Structure formats: C-alpha cells, structure tokens
C-alpha cells in the first residue's frame, strides 16, 4: 500500500519535472574561499570558472543540457570545505568540481567526494599529497610542490646568489610542504639554512625578525599565503631588513601590496598560475573578465578558467561516450582523467595515471614598487609514476 503510493508519487514527480523543463540540468561546482582572508584568490577561481561555463553553455544547450555553475565557499578551512564537499556530493545534478585553493582543503574534500565519484580538477593545489594518494577523482592542472620548491631554491641560488637562507612556513599542508621541498633543494646545493620554523602567528613577528637580524641570511623563504606574509613583510622592512623574500604561489595576489605596502618590495615568488602577460591567449579572457566582474583577472582567475574548461571538455567527452545522454558521475570521472583538453590559456592538458598534469609550467614573478613583473618561466614534468 505504502510502496505503491511512493511509486506513484515518484512517477508523478518525474512526470511533472519532465514537463516543466525538457532540458536536463548539468551543474559544475567551484569550491574555494569566497569569504575571509583568502577570498581574493578564491573569488578569482570562481569567476574564472564562470567565464568558461558561459562560453560552453550554448554547446551544452545543443546537446539538450542546461549548464550552470554553483559556487561553494570553503573559507580556506578544511572542515568547512569538507562539509561543502558533502553538500556537493548530495546534489546529483553536480557532475564535477573545480577547486580548491588550499591543499589543506583539497585533501579532505576530495576524499569526501571520492565515494560518490565526483571528479575534481584543481586550478591551484600544489601539495604532493593531493595526487599522491592516487584518488580516481582528484586531478590538477598545476605543477606540484616537488617542482615548485626546487624552482624557488634554484632561483635563489642562481639569480640571487644566496649563501644562507632563513626558512619560514605557515604550518599548513601547503606552506610546510613547500618549505620542506625548498629546504631539501637548498641543502643539496650546500646553502646554509640559518633558521627553519613554522608560525601560525598573524600579527606579531617581532621575535622571528630579531632572529633573522641576528643570523643575517641572504634571503628569506616563506611558504605561506599573502595575508600572513604581507603582515610579516611590513614589519620586517620596518625593522630595516631589506633582503629579498621569496615565496610560493600563495603570494600571488594584488592584496600582497595592499597589506605589505612598501614592505612588499624586493619580493619574488614562484607561481603555478601564470600572469596574463605570460599567456598569449589570455588577452580576450582578461578583457572579458574585467567587463563581467569589474576587476582585473589574476593568475588564479586564469587557472580557474582553464580548470573549468578541462572539466567541461571531460563532461562533453563523457556525454559523447554515453550516446549523447546524461552521463553518470563515474563516467565523468573516467573521462576527465583521460581528457586531452585543448584551447586552454596554459596549453594542452593531459593527466597522468594519478591526475598530475603531464607537462606544467612554473613562473617566477617579482614585486617591486607595487608592480608585478614576470622574471622567468620554467617547464616542469610530472614525476614518473
């Protein structure tokens, strides 16, 4: 009795739904910090992905699908990100996710998405662990820390000619991992490590700065995010320390200059997300971005765009393989891993068996007088599995 009524209801429900819209909805989600201290980078990712979705919407329409983007906020916090990932998993119309910004968030949230086979394409995560776990759903289009760390270390040795370096990190999966890679590479080149510590401090760096002054390094490497490093830089320069400071892609934000002020001069960072000037094809997208969102695009906006394009090409491939019908999440997951995405700003993307990009690029940027300029470009290969 009860069973039949439920059956009838479901039937009725699906009939009315079918009548309401002939088109099936396909959603792509982004997962990135949209509020809080790192929202500047996270919003870039979401907006970049939105541009890609706008571009592909008509193509999906022709196949009979309504394509839309939903942005989820992880506040750069692993717990919040995992909770959002569970919500994504529960929404069956979401076939894939673009995200996240922080490796510390990507690791647990991709694990939460794995049982329901929601493919994830990361525009930013560099920690080795992100793909080293061999999850089927986790992919990234950027270089790894074991490429980014040595790139930063090589730069310090060959360009800045350092003999000793003071290492700092922010005690997250990202910062700690990156600083560890830099340390390994520096030690291999016989550079002295004059200090190596982690700090979660967000305001008072006086003790650390005193130590830096005492140990007189040639440069400082800080594995951290701009909102912390900016404050540190400001205080460092106020104390009269003018040596170069090098960091990773966490510094890739215009907010660096707002927070650090003059302190952000003589700063270098390696980034996996290229500046618009390094990508010949980026001009149209950059224009489009500033027209749509009233702000300039930055590296992570461009990579949000690219990651979303990889995702959408994967979904399209899955639709094709499924005879132009709505594919399952599992089919999308397989298709994304196998995709050979073209027409991207950062070149062709192909993943290896664990989801690392087979050939990625690293960029070294320089901040001086509030201006960001490209110093050099390095090609890196994914480690062989």
């Amino acid at each position, binding site marked *: 009795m009860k069973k039949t009524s439920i059956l009838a209801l479901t039937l009725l429900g699906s009939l009315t739904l079918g009548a309401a819209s002939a088109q099936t909805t396909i959603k792509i989600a982004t997962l990135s910090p949209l509020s809080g201290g790192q929202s500047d980078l996270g919003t870039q990712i979401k907006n970049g992905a939105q541009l890609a979705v706008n571009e592909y919407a008509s193509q999906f329409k022709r196949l009979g699908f309504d394509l839309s983007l939903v942005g989820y906020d992880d506040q750069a916090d692993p717990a919040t990100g995992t909770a959002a990932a569970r919500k994504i998993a529960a929404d069956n119309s979401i076939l894939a996710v673009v995200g996240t910004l922080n490796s510390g968030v990507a690791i647990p949230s991709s694990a939460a998405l794995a049982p329901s086979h929601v493919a994830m394409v990361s525009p930013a995560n560099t920690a080795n662990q992100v793909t080293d776990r061999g999850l089927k759903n986790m992919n990234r289009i950027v270089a790894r820390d074991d490429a980014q760390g040595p790139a930063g270390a090589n730069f310090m040795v060959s360009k800045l000619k350092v003999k000793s370096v003071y290492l700092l990190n922010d005690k997250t999966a990202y910062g700690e991992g990156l600083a560890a890679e830099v340390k390994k590479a520096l030690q291999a080149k016989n550079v002295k490590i004059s200090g190596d510590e982690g700090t979660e401090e967000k305001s008072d760096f006086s003790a650390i700065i005193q130590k830096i002054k005492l140990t007189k390094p040639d440069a400082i490497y800080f594995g951290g995010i701009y909102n912390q490093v900016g404050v540190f830089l400001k205080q460092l320069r106020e104390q*009269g320390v003018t040596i170069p400071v090098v960091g990773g892609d966490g510094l890739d934000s215009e907010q660096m200059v707002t927070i650090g002020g003059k302190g952000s001069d003589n700063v270098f960072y390696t980034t996996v997300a290229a500046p618009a000037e390094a990508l010949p094809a980026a001009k149209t997208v950059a224009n489009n971005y500033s027209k749509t969102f009233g702000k300039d695009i930055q590296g992570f906006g461009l990579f949000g765009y690219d990651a979303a394009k990889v995702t959408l090409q994967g979904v399209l491939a899955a639709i094709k393989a499924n005879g132009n019908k709505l594919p399952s999440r599992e089919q999308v997951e397989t298709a994304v891993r196998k995709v050979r995405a073209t027409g991207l700003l950062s070149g062709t993307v192909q993943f290896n068996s664990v989801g690392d990009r087979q050939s990625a690029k690293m960029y070294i940027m320089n901040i001086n007088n509030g201006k960001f300029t490209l110093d050099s470009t390095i090609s890196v290969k994914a480690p062989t599995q």
Partner: protein
Amino acid sequence: MDFATLAPFLVGVIVSGLVLGFVYAIIALGYTMVYGVLQLINFAHSEVFVTGAVVGFEVFRVLGDSPMNGYLKLLIALLAAMLVSGLLNVLIERLAYRPLRNAPRLVPLITAIGVSLILQDLIRIIEGFQGRFDLTYRLPEGFSTSFCGAESSCAPIGKFLGTVGIQLQLKEVMLVVVSLIMLGGLNYLVNYTKLGRAIRAVAQDRVTAGLMGIDANGIISLTFLIGGALGGVSGVLFGLKFGTVNAYSGFDPGIVAFTAAVLGGIGSIPGAVLGGLVLGVIQNLIGVTNILGNVLGLANLGVIDSSYQRIGAFLVLVLILIFKPTGLLGRSNTEKV
C-alpha cells in the same frame, strides 16, 4: 656567536617584548576592571578591543588623504575608538549581563562567550559588505621611522641605542606613551577621585554601597564604559603596532591579556600591567629560544621555536597559580568567607 653580539640581541628581544607587553597590559586592564567590580570575566572584551581597532582603521582610512597632522589623526582615532568601544561595552552589560546578574556564575560566562562570537561575525559582516577582511592601517608618513641603529644619518643618541640593541619606531614610542598616560589616568581616577571611591565601594559590596546612597547600577555601567574605552585604546595601539587587523584578531591577544590579568592578580590594576609586561617579554624570549639553544650549545632547545610563544605564557600562568594562587600582586579575599 659571542657575548658582544648576543647581548644587544637579547636587549632587543626584551625591549620589543615590553612594547608588546604594553598592548597586553591595556587590554588586561579591561578584564580586570570589570572583574574587580562584578567578579565577571567579560570574554567579549577581546571583541570590544577589535571594535576599537576597526574604528581606528576607519578613522585613518577616512582621514588618510587629508593633510592633517599625524598626531591629530591618532588622537581622533583614539577618541573615536574609546567612545565606540566604551558605549558598546555599556550596551553589552545592559543587554547581556545585567538581566543575569543573580544567575549562577557560569551563566554570564557563557553569555559572554556568546556575545563575543556574535560581535566577531558582526564586524566581519560590516567590513565584508565593503569587500574588506584584513584591515590595513593607513598610518601617516613618518610613524614608521625608526630611531635607527647603524645608519650614518642617525642622531648620536639613536646610534648609541642601536648598538645596545634598542631599535624603536616612532609609533612604538607613541604606543608606550599613550599606554602610560592611560595607566596614570586610570590610577588617578580609581584611587584619588570620588568616583573612584564609589567604584571601589561597589566592588567591595554592591548591596551595602547601594544602602550608602551609591547608584550601583550606574557605577557598574560606568566601569564598563571605562573598561570598554581602554579596550578601544588598546585596539588602536594594536593596529598602530602591527598594521593589520581583522574580525578574528581579538582572540589571541585577548586570551593572553586575560592570562596577564590573572597572572598579575585579577582585580588588581598594577597587577594587570605587570602581568602584561611579564607575558610580553616571556613570549618574545620563548620565540627566540631556539637561537639561544644554538648559541649555548643546547641542541634540545632548538626545537622550541616561535610557534611555542603562546604556550609559554600559559605555562607561566600555571606555575604562578600553583605557587601563588592570588597572582603576582593579588590579595586574597578574606572578607567574603
């Protein structure tokens, strides 16, 4: 490394610890004032402090481009922060604590934590509407000038201070001066005025003081006003020193300042100041323990890096509470047996 390089280093660490300590001291006064009168720990004080910092940021932002004298800008920022934070604290007392004054002690404590969380998110929402999260102070030019060390352009006195390890910036000197003025003013108010006598009377026995014709509720509101104003000042000083503040910046200094108040003997004004200074110095010393370990050849100390700064403060607190439960300058309360 020899003694000649290590001595100025240690002096530098201690001096910057003292400057930090003054910020803690002023925040600690806010806790201690309220506790002294109501035996209530106002956990929302850390957000009252952040509110002051936010008001200070807004003043410097609005006045940023005007050619006004830098010191005048600072004065306006301080007064505005005192006013807003003071009134906010009065409001908190009226809405969240007064209705619960006869409830068990635990109840207002929990409300205080609740108020603190509400205020955090309120600040975040208000600034978030304008697309801001990390508020960066736009300080007038010259505030960051340091009384320099080795440079040739220094005055002889600055050079001398530099060689013994003291390197202060103008804004740090201002911070200390403002703190001292606040401390002196508060000390005078509490100990040498009629109003101060009324506050002390209410602190000792609210009911009896009421029978003597003192408006206890009025005095309590006033105490919250003063405590809040001190919170506002400390917020501006925090922004002055560190340059950046956000809605959640209050937690860490708040908890250290609370510890400072307990360490000094909660309820005691000189105790709060002493506690703040002691914790500031200890924190900075723990932050450099690994370097000292390297120099002294004690490899085991190398693992104690700056991430242990806060734990050090609490360790000291535990030790003090074991050996002198009333705190450094606290007196035991015998009249309330």
